[in-house]
């Protein structure tokens, strides 16, 4: 018989038009091609030219079409008309909304600017929002880093001038062994997937250290299912093994780190600080002469073994500590849940790749001391870490330990190792220090957030040395809280500790649900009233694009646009989109116009800034300075010639520095929504010490003079806080914190038991959460495609516990902690640390939120672990509120959680169940927007 195939058009027209912008389905900021048919979004794919994703796109990015059309989108400004939390609102005009905001805020600015607190969640415009808050004059500003991962960022910056994720990446093209630590594999997700793919394609090896074997750990060639909270101990055991075998890069340590610096050992106020010359430069002993000379002396050969007037080098202090028996593999094995054999084998494999498989790039370069090196020698082992290792009360020290491990191996900023992404590296001392000095009607005295070098930089009020910030950031409780402590704002404001506030403005932060520890109590706090019947937090302004759980707790709701309807800039002044070989920034622009009465929040702030007369937002004669955020992006100058966007400045050709260019946004649009400047060949590695890189960085406007520096194996600022606790500083910590500061602010990495372990035997299991790769926090559930992939979240239970409890598929369990109990569905997982349970984060939704029907599985079976976690540690009866945070940075210790599990009969729905909140948007009509 003859076959007749149907005629098929294999070359259909793809779309009417492609508009290129930046994704915002998560924090990855990939370039996207948005296809339009008849003016509507028809398809979204990755932009091949984009430095971040090079054409690929994740599940969230490709589902963006269902986000920009989701029924959950807010439609008009809302004013609360019923009790807070009741969800009773009336729609109002923008004029009215902005009028209300101005009437609330103007008197505060004139009388008590600290009574206004402004915190942002998934904000990608922090350089702008912080600038606005600074102009307002409140000390109370931060983004969400404090409950996310400040340990990771701060430990990296204090140790080596940059961390993982947005700050740096493995040399994916050259590394042969990649060791990935930590649960919750979200940040920088597409670049990491692409990188792992490259390693795999080359036949390189991937080792995962993670209690849970999902995602990247599922493809890891070796999986080390470590006990949560013990990563630091494992790392220090690896250091022990490497030191013992002499497998450390002594040349690298001598040249590029403070290992050869001398530690003052004389008793007194200088003890433990580095010996310095009169200009304040740390001294090293030159092996050629035996003289003590500044570390940057031309031709110096720093001596790691030197002793000078009884003072020994950092290296000797460090080696002596880690060679000690406490760090031997046998000593840590049981605690880490990893056998000594495996620890030894891991150390051996790392050493083998680092020292026996060295690679080189034939590229001469000159260091900051003036010495020229003929080639770039590389050690192709690289490390990376996810939030898991940092979300513990020992997370800062753990992250520092990992950085020190990389440094000892000489694998940072070398071919095959870990590489910084411009504008990093940038050491802690080149960052601002925190500022918190406020006066009525005046801007703050400087940027809110920064990196303290000692107690003198704490954010304490000048008169009574009480905390200046509502979140108690940069206080003795958490001196290096470089990202603030967003999770403490509501509890502190309600407790009036350190003081009460009047208006809280939040942006894209779902604090009444998945973004708070202790969700139920936070909802209660938001509605708690004082003796006069007034809310403890009198006014709450909230901006979000979607009907999140937080909307119901706002008094004034400013509806934001979706990411395809707005201007944005992902700026080098903030967390840009750079890759190791490129400095790059990007924009978003309205590729479609909103079909609702909504405005981009940044444009609203520009408007409010004009109404409030904030410096920087009004002209000399008091008129609004910028039309909207786009106008600000183009015309704002942070320093002369340096603005939010670094490409196409001046007449369109200038890069980094140059006058504002009125056509800059159009130039970005024409270029695909981004600008990338390649790091020059000779500047691609050894960046902290490489003259070519330093000069290029200055030309790009990252800083104004070259900033070469040494890696800080020994972290001197931490020692300054210890000294204060020992009594040597004019600012003294309260007595109840002295011992903790002495113990935890150790200038060399240490490991101590996470505070959560105090829960004891009654709570034998660890409980963790992580985000699925196809969901971003709470956002995914409103997306008709993504919620089909992850519509419920079981509690995964390891085999040992599964069998002991006699669980079967379909069973439910009560999970209890010191803070409460939840009842949830369970599922079995063998590829899991035997003392750990876990679930996907933020799948559980409150009934009525996100325009889902109240019987949606997210609201009936989905659950949050947050209910089990408190922002405060259990009362100790000493009259103090001890926060459940890292004592160094204040990072929320989410993963310290200890729990107990027991089988229970299946309930009707997951517990606790909260009453539905009325939706601020109408329910979905049909199945397609």
């Amino acid at each position, binding site marked *: *018989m003859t076959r*007749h*195939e149907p005629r098929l*058009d*294999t*070359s*259909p027209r793809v779309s009417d038009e492609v508009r290129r912008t930046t994704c915002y389905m998560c924090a990855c900021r990939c370039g996207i091609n948005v296809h339009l048919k008849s003016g509507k979004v028809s*398809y*979204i*794919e990755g932009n091949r030219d984009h430095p971040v994703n090079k*054409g*690929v796109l*994740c*599940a969230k990015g490709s*589902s963006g079409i269902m986000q920009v059309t989701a029924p959950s989108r807010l439609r008009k400004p809302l004013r609360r008309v019923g009790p807070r939390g009741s969800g009773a609102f009336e729609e109002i005009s923008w004029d009215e909304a902005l009028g209300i905001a101005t009437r609330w805020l103007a008197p505060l600015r004139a009388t008590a600017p600290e009574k206004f607190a402004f915190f942002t969640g998934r904000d990608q415009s922090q350089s702008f929002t912080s600038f606005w808050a600074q102009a307002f004059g409140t000390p109370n500003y931060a983004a969400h880093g404090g409950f996310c991962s400040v340990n990771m960022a701060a430990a990296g910056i204090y140790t080596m001038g940059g961390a993982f994720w947005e700050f740096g990446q493995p040399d994916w093209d050259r590394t042969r062994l990649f060791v990935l630590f930590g649960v919750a594999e979200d940040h920088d*997700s597409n670049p990491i*997937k*692409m990188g*792992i*793919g*490259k390693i795999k394609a080359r036949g390189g090896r991937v*080792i995962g250290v993670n209690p849970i*074997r999902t*995602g*990247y750990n*599922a*493809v*890891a060639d*070796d999986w080390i299912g470590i006990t949560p909270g013990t990563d630091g101990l494992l790392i220090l055991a690896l250091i022990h093994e490497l030191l*013992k*075998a*002499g497998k450390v890069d*002594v040349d690298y340590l*001598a040249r590029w780190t403070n290992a050869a610096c001398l530690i003052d050992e004389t008793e007194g106020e200088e003890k433990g600080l580095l010996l310095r010359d009169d200009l304040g430069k740390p001294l090293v002993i030159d092996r050629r002469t035996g003289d003590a000379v500044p570390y940057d002396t031309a031709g110096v050969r720093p001596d*790691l*073994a030197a002793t000078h007037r009884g003072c020994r080098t950092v290296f000797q202090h460090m*080696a002596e500590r880690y*060679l000690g028996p406490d760090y031997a593999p046998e000593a840590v094995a049981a605690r880490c849940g990893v056998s000594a*054999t*495996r620890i*030894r084998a*891991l150390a051996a*494999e790392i050493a083998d790749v680092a020292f026996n498989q060295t690679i080189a790039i034939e590229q001469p370069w000159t260091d900051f001391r003036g010495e020229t090196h003929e080639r770039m020698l590389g050690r192709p082992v690289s490390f990376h870490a996810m939030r898991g290792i940092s979300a513990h009360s020992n997370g800062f020290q753990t992250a520092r330990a990992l950085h020190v491990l990389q440094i000892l191996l000489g694998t940072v900023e070398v071919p095959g190792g870990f590489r910084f992404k411009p504008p990093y590296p940038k050491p802690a001392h080149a960052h601002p220090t925190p500022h918190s000095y406020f006066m009525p009607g005046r801007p703050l005295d400087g940027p809110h957030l920064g990196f303290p070098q000692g107690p003198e930089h704490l954010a304490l009020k000048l008169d009574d040395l009480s905390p200046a910030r509502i979140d108690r950031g940069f206080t003795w409780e958490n001196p290096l809280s470089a990202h603030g402590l967003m999770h403490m704002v509501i509890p502190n404001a309600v407790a009036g500790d350190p003081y009460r506030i009047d208006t809280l403005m939040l942006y894209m932060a779902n604090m009444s649900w998945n973004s708070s520890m202790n969700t139920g109590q936070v909802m209660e706090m938001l509605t708690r009233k004082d003796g006069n019947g007034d809310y403890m937090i009198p006014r709450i302004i909230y901006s979000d694009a979607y009907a999140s759980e937080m909307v119901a707790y706002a008094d004034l709701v400013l509806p934001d646009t979706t990411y395809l309807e707005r201007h944005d800039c992902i700026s080098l002044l903030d967390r840009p989109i750079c890759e190791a070989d490129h400095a790059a920034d990007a924009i978003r622009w309205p590729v479609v116009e909103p079909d609702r009465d909504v405005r981009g929040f940044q444009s609203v702030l520009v408007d409010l800034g004009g109404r409030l007369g904030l410096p920087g937002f009004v002209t000399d004669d008091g008129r609004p300075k910028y039309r909207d955020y786009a106008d600000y992006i183009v015309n704002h100058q942070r320093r002369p010639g340096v603005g939010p966007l670094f490409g196409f400045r001046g007449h369109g050709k200038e890069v980094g520095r140059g006058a504002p260019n009125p056509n800059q946004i159009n130039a970005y649009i024409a270029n695909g929504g981004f600008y990338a400047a390649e790091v020059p060949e000779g500047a691609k590695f050894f960046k902290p010490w490489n003259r070519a890189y330093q000069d290029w960085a200055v030309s790009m406007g990252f800083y104004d003079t070259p900033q070469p520096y040494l890696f800080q194996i020994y972290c001197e600022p931490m020692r300054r806080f210890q000294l204060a606790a020992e009594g040597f500083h004019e600012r003294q910590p309260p007595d109840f914190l002295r011992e903790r500061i002495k113990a935890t602010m150790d200038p060399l990495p240490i490991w101590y038991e996470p505070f959560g372990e105090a829960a004891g035997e009654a709570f034998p299991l660890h409980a963790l959460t992580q985000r699925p*790769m*196809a969901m971003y926090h709470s956002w995914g559930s*409103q997306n*008709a*495609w993504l*919620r*089909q992939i992850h519509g419920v979240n079981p509690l995964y239970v390891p085999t040992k516990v599964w069998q002991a409890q006699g669980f079967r598929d379909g069973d439910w369990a009560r999970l209890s902690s010191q803070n409460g109990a939840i009842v949830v569905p369970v599922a079995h997982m*063998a*590829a899991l640390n035997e003392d750990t349970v876990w679930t996907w984060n933020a799948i559980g939704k409150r009934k009525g939120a996100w325009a*889902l029907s109240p*019987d*949606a*599985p997210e609201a009936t079976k989905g659950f949050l672990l947050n209910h089990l976690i408190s922002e405060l540690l259990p009362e100790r009866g000493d009259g103090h509120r001890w926060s459940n945070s890292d004592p160094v940075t204040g990072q929320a210790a989410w993963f310290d959680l200890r729990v107990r599990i027991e089988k229970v009969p299946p309930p009707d729905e997951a517990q606790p169940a909260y009453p539905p909140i009325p939706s601020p948007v109408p329910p*979905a009509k*049909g*199945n*397609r927007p």
Partner: protein
Amino acid sequence: MTALPPPSDKKLGLVIDLDTCVGCHACVTACKGWNDQGYGAPLSDQDAWGAEPSGTFLNRVHSYEVTPEAGPAQIVHFPKSCLHCENAPCVTVCPTGASYKRAEDGIVLVNESACIGCGLCAWACPYGARELDQAAGVMKKCTLCVDRIYNENLPEIDRTPACVRTCPAGARHFGDLGDPESAVSLLVAERGGIELMPEQGTKPVNRYLPPRRKDRLEETAPLAPLLDIQASGFAGWLDRLLDRI
């Protein structure tokens, strides 16, 4: 036309690397997005924001747990879509001729305008590659993006299935498995690519690259100490270490 064509020289298909797939579902929604607006009827969803959301997907990523005799358990992410079988049972069962295998390149397609939605082809497929769209009442399946791979309106580099173009880890490869010298065939040969359920006799074109052998760390010999620190003391250790500079 439900008669299968004689085996074509060109056998277009996918090679999926199970050693590299991190289970991110990027291919799932890229496929959904492209095919929602491309070949045939949109991929509908039912109860999209309700209690039982369920839609048509042409590609889904399963997750399996493998517990070996010794060593820790492993998780394997397993994307699955139409395998474009040479001996495609879904084609021959079709009563209307809607289901067909292209003689030119072996792609198995559904001519939706001829599909009565009887579902028999889905029953005949061992792999779960066909889903009857509940809104359109026609059978949907992976087209290998036949409207992309030859599409002259797309730049040459983009003439590849949407799932392959988007895969962040590079775990999906597209090519001619009929050509033993093609990149995909070489990959299959090198990595021992396998067929799924060979006992069904469907002769799938798509191949899966199995996960490499895992958890071999303990085979590494430990490091030898530089010297006996107990005997030589810290100073001796330091001397020995720094001798090398």
